[in-house]
């Protein structure tokens, strides 16, 4: 390297530095330190695995360390309440968020410790649509079979799902309302125990996420999926809409920062997550995920819609 080019490089750096100093929140001075990425759930779940896939890509793109930290407890509420009261609104602390949890918990629990509006949502980056799953040898060949049986035998069909006032539970309640049936919903602690519940015949059916249906393959029959259109990975499974039930929903996962974080940093992070989705999609779409990029007003609208859809069940 010649002396001349070295000095011109120094000049360039100087200009950039001066420019940056004049505009306080230019993208160049962010991130200035490691990013803390908090996952409010146990390791091994969908939120965790996704964050672990994002971690190296983020480090490469941002040029700083990204620390994925777990802070499980209370179905996410422990981390969310801690985050809203303590995190710095400068973009260096981001947290994984899920629907319907962050909509439902503050309505349902007096002491959730956080509010739905207390987050600035970066983006909802993917969705795992709900599915109704039965064991491969179940007498229910179609959703109609299941609904007919449940209509004739109130409460005797048991339907498993992950947790209470979660997406699985609320979707079951919605299906019950729309189809005018009564099933008994049985909450399990997370999605982990659900395969055993289906295969062991401990429940008659399961309301879960599309990822579970893909994972369990030929051991189960998937009766319907709660997406707008059929999934690439489950091409033979009809949507609820096709079958005449307005059930569209699932677990959206995304990331958020505290209120008051500079908008350009939120924007930059949103672009990054959208960009990472292209790489992640190669692995995750075949697993039953739908990649999304719902940000800004759309992200808020999503939660408003959810509040309207499920609000009655929660009060």
């Amino acid at each position: 390297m010649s002396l001349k080019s070295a000095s011109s490089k120094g000049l360039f750096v100087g200009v950039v530095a001066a420019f940056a100093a004049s505009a306080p929140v230019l993208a160049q001075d962010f991130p200035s330190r490691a990013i803390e990425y908090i996952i409010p759930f146990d390791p091994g779940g969908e939120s965790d695995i996704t964050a672990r896939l994002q971690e190296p890509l983020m480090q490469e793109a941002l040029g700083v360390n990204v620390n994925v930290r777990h802070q499980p407890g209370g179905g996410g509420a422990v981390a969310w309440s801690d985050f809203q009261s303590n995190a710095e609104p400068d973009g260096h602390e981001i947290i994984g968020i899920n629907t319907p949890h962050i909509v439902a918990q503050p309505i349902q629990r007096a002491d959730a410790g956080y509010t739905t509006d207390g987050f600035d949502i970066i983006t909802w980056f993917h969705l795992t649509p709900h599915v109704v799953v039965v064991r491969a040898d179940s007498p229910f060949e179609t959703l109609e079979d299941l609904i007919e049986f449940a209509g004739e035998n109130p409460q005797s069909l048991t339907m498993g799902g992950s947790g209470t006032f979660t997406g699985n539970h609320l979707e079951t309640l919605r299906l019950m309302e729309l189809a005018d049936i009564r099933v008994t919903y049985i909450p399990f602690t997370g999605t982990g125990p659900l395969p055993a519940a289906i295969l062991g015949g401990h429940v008659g059916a399961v309301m879960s996420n599309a990822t579970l249906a893909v994972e369990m393959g030929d051991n189960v029959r998937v009766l319907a999926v709660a997406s707008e259109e059929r999934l690439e990975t489950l091409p033979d499974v009809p949507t609820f809409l096709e079958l005449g039930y307005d059930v569209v929903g699932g677990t959206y996962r995304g990331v958020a920062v505290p209120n008051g974080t500079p908008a350009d940093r939120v924007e930059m992070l949103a672009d990054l997550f959208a960009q990472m989705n292209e790489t992640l999609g190669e692995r995750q779409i075949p697993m039953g995920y739908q990649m999304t990029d719902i940000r800004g007003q759309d992200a808020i609208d999503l939660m408003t819609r959810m509040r309207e859809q499920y609000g009655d069940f929660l009060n």
Partner: protein
Amino acid sequence: MEILIAAAAAVLQPHMLVIILLGVTAGLFVGALPGLTATMALALMLPFTFSLEALEGLVALGAVYMGTIYGGAFTAILINTPGTPSSIATTFDGHPMAKQGRALEAISVATIASVIGGVVGVAFLLIAAPPLAQLALRFGPAEMFWVAILGLTLIGSLATGSLLKGLLGGAIGLLIGTIGISPVGGESRFTFGWPPLQGGISLIVALIGLFVIPELLLMIRRGHATLETPADLGRSRFQFGAALRTVLAKPGNLIRSCAIGQVIAIIPGAGGSITSLVAYNEAKRWSKSPETFGKGNPEGVVASESSNNVMVAGSMVPLLTLGIPGAPPDAIILGVMLLHGLRPGLDLFTQTGVLANGFIISMGLAALMLIPVGLLGGRLIYKTILRTPHYYLVPTILIITILGTYALRNNIIDVALMLGLGVVGFVIRGLGLGAAPIVLGLILGTIAEQGYVQSILGGMALDFPQMRLFVNPLSQVLIAIIVLVIGWAAWPQNLRRKKD
């Protein structure tokens, strides 16, 4: 058979052996540190495994898992503190042995028992996975309720001295377990309007608080470390042959403990925490001299350490065949498998058989690797602890404990709870209440509650929903066992024997 040979060839590569060696060594130290759990170690390794081939990644995870479960035995023996929940029962006889200057013997016995347990678990997995998986599926909510009740009957024999104090401890544990969001209904309970309590009191927090802190306080009060320095430390060796003879002298104990480890490992959700306690309890029950247990009987160490290492491979049975994680670390292994496009099921053993069988074989190798790593690492840890004066040892352990507790859920509240429970644990230990019944109550209370409520919900269409708890044949078998166990303990002759 061809698949097995191909799988063995894939694993018996130099770089694979290095991965196993490193994994086991790292796992051993993580397991030995209170608060750092197998789940945490595996979670930290996740990004690293993405850059590896599927088989390499799984092999690394399996090796760390095996090392962690074994590493818990060191702290259990040397400082009466279970490094992981699965080594609680190792403290009962391992630590008394150490106090008698037989620490190296206890470590050797624990190592050999762990290796045998690990290899047996792998053998079960290779030979009997499909039928075991079918058995696992029989454990529904009602059966889980009865398993938890059966576990609670252990309190009677875990109680040191008074049965009443044991039951009181168990009740305290059950109460602690109700704090937080209820496992089935989702209501918040006993949070007193304070959001951080929504997460409840984690098992590890209680474990560290109730075991480690009282031990440290005792060390301070005594003014010297727990262990006496044997006069011939310089020359003391592992009596490897002697330890091997000790372990093999009671084959009944070994076989029973391995079988118990395997059965409990496949029950989804019961996890490793109670495996060693059940095996220990049975070793004591069937022994001709149960009064020697708790006073440094190596059989107790054998029962605990063989059963908990069976569990490592044993819990892979429902995982690999059905996609059901039996213990928390399994969930992470499942995640890695799915990312590499491996779907659990019997196809895993045929279509991608080299991979599945290679993973299983590597766990067997990891178990064997425990001998050199364990004996060297064990000696190192032993000497370090012996030679460190207590005024360095106590603060060091305290700091590690606090860091470990914080790292658990990245929650400073957990540290406060841990220290608070520690003081409580110290006080009640003075009153003759042991920590083990409390921890057992905490573990089993949640499982029992979940099983009970899910069963009742499942029986909503019946006239008496409670009947749901009694109708399954397996439930009836479990009820019969519970009746037998309580009857045995209450039999006048045995009551008298306990008093002696």
